[in-house]
């Protein structure tokens, strides 16, 4: 049996508590702090780092009785769409081991697809839960920004990211979301919401009126389009109605996303200087030289490029050109979604415009990889939730369908996905 390289650290952490996750095994992405267990973010710079605390979501799953199976592989600092930028090697897609599992939460999605666990935690900044869920043929949710605490999630782009559940069923998504959601004093970007049992919505499957943006389907691969429309037709027979719509603002989503994410990353990763934790270089006689050597030695290529591009985009003379314009695009996309949600209950797209790449194929062409995020990035920019579900309409490789809803409409997503699960399974 091929080693899929799912885990960076395989170490079981059990809880004495009993609760909603009693008897459940959960795999946890390696950018979420697990106390006293190596947490690396897929990087050499945190090799050997053992956090002195648990992330809030980790604390919550342990207090509900979960057994954590280990820390899963990921693109370095969550920067990637294939899990190939990890310092610890690529993860193989269990469905086809010559292909990538998607990224950056590839290890978590592979753990679920491989049957090691039913539930896993990932993080999603520009698609990093939904993409691997799509490529591995499982379910993945990016919650509304502010629904789930980011305390203990080692930051890449903190205005965009959320911790999200990955599971082999809609019920699994709902159960994990119930446990991890909720306001947290340690993360003031979380929003006060009523404690909700999301599993109840799985018992209330419902059909909805759907808009499908032409910008996010017309340029997809033929096989993706076929699988998507075939699934939509089946949903139509169950009461969903759909129409093609235009959403021109999303055409700049990828550029706006990367400018914002790289800018935030250049700031968030400034903390890795080797003094308080992590790798420390032996070179460099003074503060600046030693920091530069530490970071130069222990960050991978993709991370270095993004830090530099982010530094450039926020530097004097360029901020107006890049960062401010990207934020304006963000506002436009958010408004366009809002106005479409006045006419449609859900907006639905293929999760990824492409099928899973072969391992090694995408690394030389960063633009090709960035454009693969075209369908997922508009959602992070708008702070709204989206759920990827497997269509099971493709003969060989998985094709995911992405359902998008207004802020805090996870109940609607779960109702829709439950009906879809029954219909498409």
């Amino acid at each position, binding site marked *: 049996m091929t080693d899929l390289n799912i885990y960076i650290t395989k170490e079981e952490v059990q809880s004495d508590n009993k609760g909603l996750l009693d008897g459940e095994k959960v795999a946890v992405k390696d950018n979420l702090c697990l106390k006293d267990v190596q947490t690396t973010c897929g990087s050499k710079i945190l090799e050997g780092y053992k956090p*002195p605390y648990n992330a809030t979501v980790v604390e919550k799953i342990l207090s509900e009785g979960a057994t954590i199976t280990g820390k899963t592989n990921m693109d370095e600092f969550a920067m990637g769409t294939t899990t190939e930028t990890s310092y610890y090697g690529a993860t193989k897609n269990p469905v086809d081991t010559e292909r990538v599992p998607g990224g950056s939460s590839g290890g978590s999605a592979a753990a679920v697809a491989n049957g090691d666990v039913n539930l896993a935690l990932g993080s999603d900044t520009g698609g990093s839960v939904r993409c691997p869920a799509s490529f591995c043929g499982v379910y993945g949710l990016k919650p509304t920004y502010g629904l789930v605490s980011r305390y203990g999630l080692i930051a890449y782009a903190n205005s965009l990211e959320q911790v999200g559940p990955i599971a082999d069923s809609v019920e699994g998504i709902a159960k994990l979301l119930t446990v991890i959601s909720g306001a947290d004093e340690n993360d003031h970007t979380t929003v006060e919401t009523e404690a909700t049992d999301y599993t109840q919505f799985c018992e209330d499957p419902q059909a909805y009126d759907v808009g499908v943006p032409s910008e996010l389907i017309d340029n997809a691969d033929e096989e993706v389009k076929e699988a998507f429309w075939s699934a939509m037709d089946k949903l139509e027979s169950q009461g969903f109605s759909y129409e093609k719509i235009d959403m021109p603002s999303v055409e*700049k989503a990828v550029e706006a996303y990367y400018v914002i994410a790289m800018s935030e990353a250049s700031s968030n990763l400034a903390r890795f200087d080797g003094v308080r934790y992590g790798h420390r270089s032996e070179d460099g006689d003074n503060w600046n030289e030693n920091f530069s050597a530490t970071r130069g030695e222990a960050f991978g290529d993709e991370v270095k490029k993004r830090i530099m591009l982010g530094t450039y985009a926020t530097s004097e003379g360029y901020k107006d050109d890049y960062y401010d314009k990207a934020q304006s695009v963000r506002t436009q996309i958010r408004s366009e979604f809002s106005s479409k949600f006045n006419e449609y209950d859900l907006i639905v797209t293929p999760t990824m415009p492409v099928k899973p790449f072969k391992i090694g194929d995408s690394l030389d062409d960063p633009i090709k990889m960035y454009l693969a995020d075209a369908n997922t990035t508009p959602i992070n920019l708008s702070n709204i939730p989206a759920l990827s579900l497997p269509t099971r309409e493709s003969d060989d490789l998985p094709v995911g369908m992405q359902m998008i809803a207004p802020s805090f409409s996870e109940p609607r997503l779960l109702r829709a996905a439950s009906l879809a699960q029954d219909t498409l399974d």
Partner: protein
Amino acid sequence: MTNSPERVSEDDVHHIAELARVTVDDEEVERYIEQMDKVLDRFESLDEVKVDEEREDQLENIVRPDVIDESLTQEEALGNAEETKDGYFKGPSTN
């Protein structure tokens, strides 16, 4: 020989790397520069965007009272550092 980039020169890349405190050697600069140039080329599609004069911000700043609460012990806080001295983190010399 690769096409020379239009938007960033090798000197630019070295300068940015210095600002970001990330050492890059000549081989890396050569490898990165073409890709970075392509990315900046795509970012130029943002040129046509009009910047809103009033951007709506949905998030309010939230603060908590400045009251001492439980935190890490000194031992826990120092636990991952490569060099410590008398309860301090020990860093490289400042100059």
